[in-house]
């Protein structure tokens, strides 16, 4: 048997019930039950619907993860769980379940930050995290640029979105273009047929004054409005909207700003490793442009495979395993959930 810590991680911050099991830096299983289809007709995640789905999926998902990994619960070294940020009612289901496991099994529990988990998951994909690493997390809920000297206890925020998250802009533009929710994958697909320089959409917070005051912050609300206005103008004139070109040009505006700022952050903080995580990291153009710009700048790019970029239990288990490996104190059994947990707080 290996001495490396065997950790089960639970993630319920939004609409995915995720349970992952990691041994040290090796992913054993990543099980996800998603309620995304139940939310599609509302065009966004309905908190109560998500919470009800978590309750129903929780034990079956734990059971399936253990079975598929061939792991007995009593062999676990620790339980880790997302304690925030996220939807309050959804977080509670996962945290309560994790506490029940920890208590019943007599194992330590680690309540961890969802965002730090997005960073830590790459350890099971690409090995130990260089210290420091620059991390850009882009999803429907977050757009953050983080300097990460130590993912278990030192995560620093360089900037984040001032308004919409990047993924949210994808959802909204998808709606304008008549594409289904969630918008990210559909915009990405439509954009492959389009011309990304067909329309010159605005790049938020990239001009002189903004670069002084919001050097590593993002803004996607103006871009989203610009796309909506551009489409409306065509529609009002009775013209066909070139969906592929709009998708490609919008997507280019987003990934251009993201990668430009991420590489600037690497340069100014003298960091040689850039990690991109979160659901938008599955975007094919973001991956391609980031790779191109990292190659040019001599920066090593790390992006977990798409399945590990979206919310999952493996990322929580991966961070938990790091906490154990680094000898961090477990959380108290009375640990709270924190729907707006700051990114700089790795552990609850």
């Amino acid at each position: 048997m290996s001495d490396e810590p065997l950790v089960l991680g639970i993630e319920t911050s939004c609409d995915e019930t995720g349970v992952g099991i990691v041994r040290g830096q090796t992913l054993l299983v990543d099980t996800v039950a998603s309620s995304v289809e139940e939310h599609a007709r509302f065009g966004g995640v309905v908190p109560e619907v998500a919470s009800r789905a978590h309750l129903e999926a929780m034990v079956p998902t734990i059971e399936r993860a253990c079975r598929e990994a061939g792991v007995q619960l009593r062999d676990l070294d620790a339980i880790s769980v997302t304690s925030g940020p996220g939807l309050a009612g959804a977080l509670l289901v996962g945290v309560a379940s994790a506490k029940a496991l920890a208590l019943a099994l007599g194992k330590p529990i680690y309540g961890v930050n969802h965002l730090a988990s997005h960073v830590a998951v790459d350890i099971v994909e690409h090995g130990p995290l260089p210290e420091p690493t620059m991390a850009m997390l882009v999803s429907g809920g977050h757009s953050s640029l983080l300097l990460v000297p130590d993912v278990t206890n030192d995560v620093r925020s360089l900037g984040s979105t001032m308004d919409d998250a990047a993924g949210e802009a994808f959802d909204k533009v998808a709606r304008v273009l008549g594409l289904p929710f969630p918008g990210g994958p559909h915009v990405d697909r439509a954009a492959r047929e389009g011309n990304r320089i067909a329309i010159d959409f605005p790049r938020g917070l990239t001009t002189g004054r903004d670069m002084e005051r919001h050097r590593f912050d993002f803004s996607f609300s103006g871009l989203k409005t610009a796309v909506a206005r551009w489409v409306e103008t065509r529609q009002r004139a009775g013209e066909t909207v070139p969906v592929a070109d709009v998708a490609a040009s919008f997507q280019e505006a987003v990934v251009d700003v993201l990668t430009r700022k991420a590489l600037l952050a690497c340069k100014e903080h003298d960091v040689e490793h850039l990690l991109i995580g979160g659901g938008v990291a599955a975007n094919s153009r973001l991956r391609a442009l980031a790779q191109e710009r990292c190659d040019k700048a001599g920066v090593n790019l790390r992006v977990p495979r798409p399945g590990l970029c979206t919310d999952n239990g493996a990322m929580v288990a991966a961070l938990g395993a790091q906490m154990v490996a680094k000898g961090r104190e477990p959380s108290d059994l009375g640990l709270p959930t924190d729907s707006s947990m700051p990114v700089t707080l790795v552990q609850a």
Partner: protein
Amino acid sequence: MLLLAIDTSTTAITVGLHDGASVVAEATTLDARAHAEHLAPNIRAALASAGAEPGDVTDVVVGIGPGPFTGLRVGIVTGRTFAFALGLPVRGLASLDALAHEAWLEGRRGDLLVATDARRKEVYAATYSLGDERACRVGEPVVSRAADLPDEVRGLPTAGRGPTLYADVLPDAVGPRDVSGGVLADLAARRLRESPAGPADELQLVDPGHGFDGLEPLYLRRPDAAPAPPSKKSTLG
């Protein structure tokens, strides 16, 4: 036997332990906003005061409401997970039954209304007939404005927080206000004695007064169908 009972359907985050003969421990915290914080520590505290380990538990029973959803789920998922982790049977009981049972234990007989806080100016309510043998639920629990309950129902002696919140329409406050884990454990132990072979996970509210109620929460309301404010979600990870 060591039966662990859990309820989070009212303001009480409450846990009880029953050894087959009597209630051997109870731990309760009154805090409508922090169910997840207090529940696991309360289970630990109850076990400690009974001198028991988690591994000594033989049966788990959870109150399945009705109750405010967020808190209610904490108890149910805790009970389900705890039981799963130890390979134990887990059963559900309608939480309002525990309030009626407590009134019965205190010696009350006759008809009783149980009305708990459902928020949004409503109550969760069910009527009971308290006989010599037991308290028996008369019909399914409902969610309603207290004033909209039938006159003859509102006039009954009423347990739960309903009468405290709506004293003008529920004038006859009696008995317990919140569920007690110890009382839930006592009720569960009695029902186990009566029908020991009953299935551990029936899905319907059946045969009020006997047996168990399945493990599905009694929400009694559909979810509000408004998407989360964007800043609170992470739909794409």
